[in-house]
């Protein structure tokens, strides 16, 4: 989808159409841009940019908070449209999905016709525009979809994948971030075509097994299947502090709330997590993650305890800008080893479900752990 969050806002509030719209954190604060309308992008605003910088670049923009529930509903409508064209739909994020159109020609005509119909239906039914890439595999299709935004359609004919990729920057390759791009730059490599001409030897010498994958991708080879409804690999919560924080009690309290949110999400999805990961970003933006793998859990207190153990091992060498906790190694709930030394665990499991039901009915914060109740200033 094109500038998805911003586009939804512009669709729902006609006054915003034609104006720069930036969806994300409070512009006076320190969060990031989640989405920017094309009007805002003309001023150089990009998603994931610090919101304060966006405010400087585009002072006239309308800043809006993220309304995930609403975007989620629109996303469901879009995914349902995709589902009408193929049973193999793999959502990548709320506004992006892979679709395997193999064998759909008898129903919808040649794939390029099917794509046009999909784009038309999305526009007619949701009022939003989408950009598509059509190719023989996921990687090339993804690259193609990014090349002609908004409302684009780029088709890469079978057999022409390598030629199509050759002029593009290496940073288009999956797995090439700043660090790898710098390494490749030292070899004088900036375009995908240069990687195509390079033998595997020096790439592997420089980048290890990753070098071999890059070479295959550069040639437009990617044999990953479109996997419908892939189970989530992790669930997490992160908080960027208004002001860098070096008070352990505040960090711990923040983690406690995050652990509850993650646990609620796990329970809602019928999953339990074996791995708990703590993420800390220091004031200088260096980021640290620490993980612990244990018995699968979907209990907020247990997730908090594990994250706290990980936090307890870190020295607060700098103030903390961001803290987060993620649950990984997910598996179906109510299976696996029970704990021997925590006899209350089974009771907390039932408690968590009861609290979820109450909060679903009477509002999200009807019942929260006492540590998260704001202190009453009157007392």
């Amino acid at each position, binding site marked *: 989808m094109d500038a998805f969050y911003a586009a939804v806002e512009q669709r729902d509030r006609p006054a915003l159409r034609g104006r720069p719209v930036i969806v994300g954190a409070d512009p006076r604060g320190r969060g990031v841009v989640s989405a920017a309308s094309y009007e805002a992008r003309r001023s150089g605003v990009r998603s994931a940019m610090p919101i304060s910088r966006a405010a400087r670049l585009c002072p006239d923009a309308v800043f809006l908070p993220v309304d995930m529930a609403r975007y989620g509903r629109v996303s469901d409508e879009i995914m349902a449209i995709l589902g009408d064209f193929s049973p193999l739909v793999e959502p990548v994020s709320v506004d992006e999905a892979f679709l395997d159109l193999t064998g759909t020609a008898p129903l919808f005509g040649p794939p390029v016709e099917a794509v046009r119909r999909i784009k038309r239906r999305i526009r007619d039914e949701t009022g939003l525009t989408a950009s598509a890439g059509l190719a023989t595999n996921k990687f090339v299709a993804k690259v193609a979809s990014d090349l002609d935004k908004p409302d684009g359609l780029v088709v890469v004919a079978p057999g022409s994948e390598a030629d199509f990729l050759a002029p593009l920057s290496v940073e288009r390759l999956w797995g090439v971030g700043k660090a790898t791009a710098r390494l490749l730059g030292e070899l004088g490599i900036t375009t995908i075509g240069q990687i195509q001409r390079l033998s595997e030897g020096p790439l592997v010498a420089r980048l290890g097994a990753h070098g071999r994958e890059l070479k295959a991708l550069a040639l437009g080879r990617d044999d990953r299947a479109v996997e419908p409804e892939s189970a989530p690999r992790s669930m997490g919560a992160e908080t960027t502090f208004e002001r860098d924080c070096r008070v352990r009690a505040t960090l711990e309290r923040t983690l406690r709330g995050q652990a509850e949110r993650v646990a609620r999400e796990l329970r809602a999805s019928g999953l339990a997590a074996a791995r708990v990961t703590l993420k800390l970003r220091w004031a200088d933006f260096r980021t640290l993650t620490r993980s612990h793998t244990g018995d699968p859990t979907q209990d907020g207190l247990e997730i908090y305890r594990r994250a706290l153990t990980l936090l307890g091992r870190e020295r607060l060498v700098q103030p903390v800008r961001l803290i987060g906790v993620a649950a990984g190694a997910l598996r179906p709930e109510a299976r696996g080893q029970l*704990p*021997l030394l*925590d006899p209350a665990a*089974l009771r907390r499991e039932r408690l968590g479900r009861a609290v979820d039901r109450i909060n679903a009915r009477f509002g999200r914060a009807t019942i929260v752990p006492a540590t998260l109740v704001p202190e009453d200033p009157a007392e």
Partner: protein
Amino acid sequence: MEVILDRDAFLKGLQMVQNIVEPRQTMPILANVLLETEEGTVRLSATDLEVGARVSVPARVVGKGAITVAARKLAEIVKELPAAAVALKVGDNASVSLRCAGAAYRLVGLPPDDFPAVAPASPGAWLTLEAKALRDMLGQTSFAVSHDETRYALNGVLFSLQGKELRLVATDGHRLALASRAIGEVGKPVTGIVPRKAIGEVMRVLGAGEEVQLALTENQFVLQMPNFVMTARLIEGQFPNYEAVVPKNHPGRLTIGRAALGAALRRVSVMAEERNKPVKLTLAPTVLRITASSAELGDAEETLDVDYGGDEVSIGFNSRYLLDALGPIEHEQVVLEFKDALSPGVVRSGAGDAYCCVIMPMRI
């Protein structure tokens, strides 16, 4: 320093201490073994600052002194030497010459002054025990020690001396193993968590016949045998209240042949999912059914005739935990105690209550 040792005695001594040395070291000298002369012996010491061991090897002392040399290299050399006298002499700059039959080595040593002393505390009271008894008790508990480094209080075996009983307890949060043994009056009750590494070393060096002496001080575990002493810094931390974990008065109880149960578990668990090897035990009057299934592999079932007349109950367990619990039992019969699918089961020896293993079920 100049000494002459018998190769076999030297090797045996080195093997008793060299495992203490960690392959990777922060201090170079900790990769070394300390050799010191005493009257008619050479003392070999190794330490990683947590666990230390010292052994005396008979020797002809030509010149007194001390030196440290790379522990693993020295053991490797002595292992290859023929059964003959080994002459060891320290030269200038901590260089060590070693000769045996026609073989000659020069080893780069380090001066002994910086070597951290292996210093056993002087405890008020010693507990004397047969080596075999201690080894059995460690065998009954050490398998349950946790490998989870975040739960450091569980990374060892709890030694508890109280009344007239020595108890050893280990748990990893899924199962708990307890071994107890009557001893003489010990006076003041003491407890201490002995780290996993020391437990492994004790089990390795314990011989068959001799007696050993144990002591626990404020922060140290000490084990003495003739010509040998080992020390270990106790793990600081709170060991769980193990007595609350051992269920009392479980309604279900079953006596069954150890070998038959073990064999059935091994056969069925072949088809269990790889990670936790879950099996389901279903008890009904006169029959115990053990089943395992895996979506990818298929399933397996085995039934055993048992003397059971209670209610039908079905409990999932990690089959590895059940087999671990059966492992140290020598008696032909084992006793299983249980309640329901969410309560811990207990495995005991038919011989009595000196050993038990409490295992929390799995949900399958």
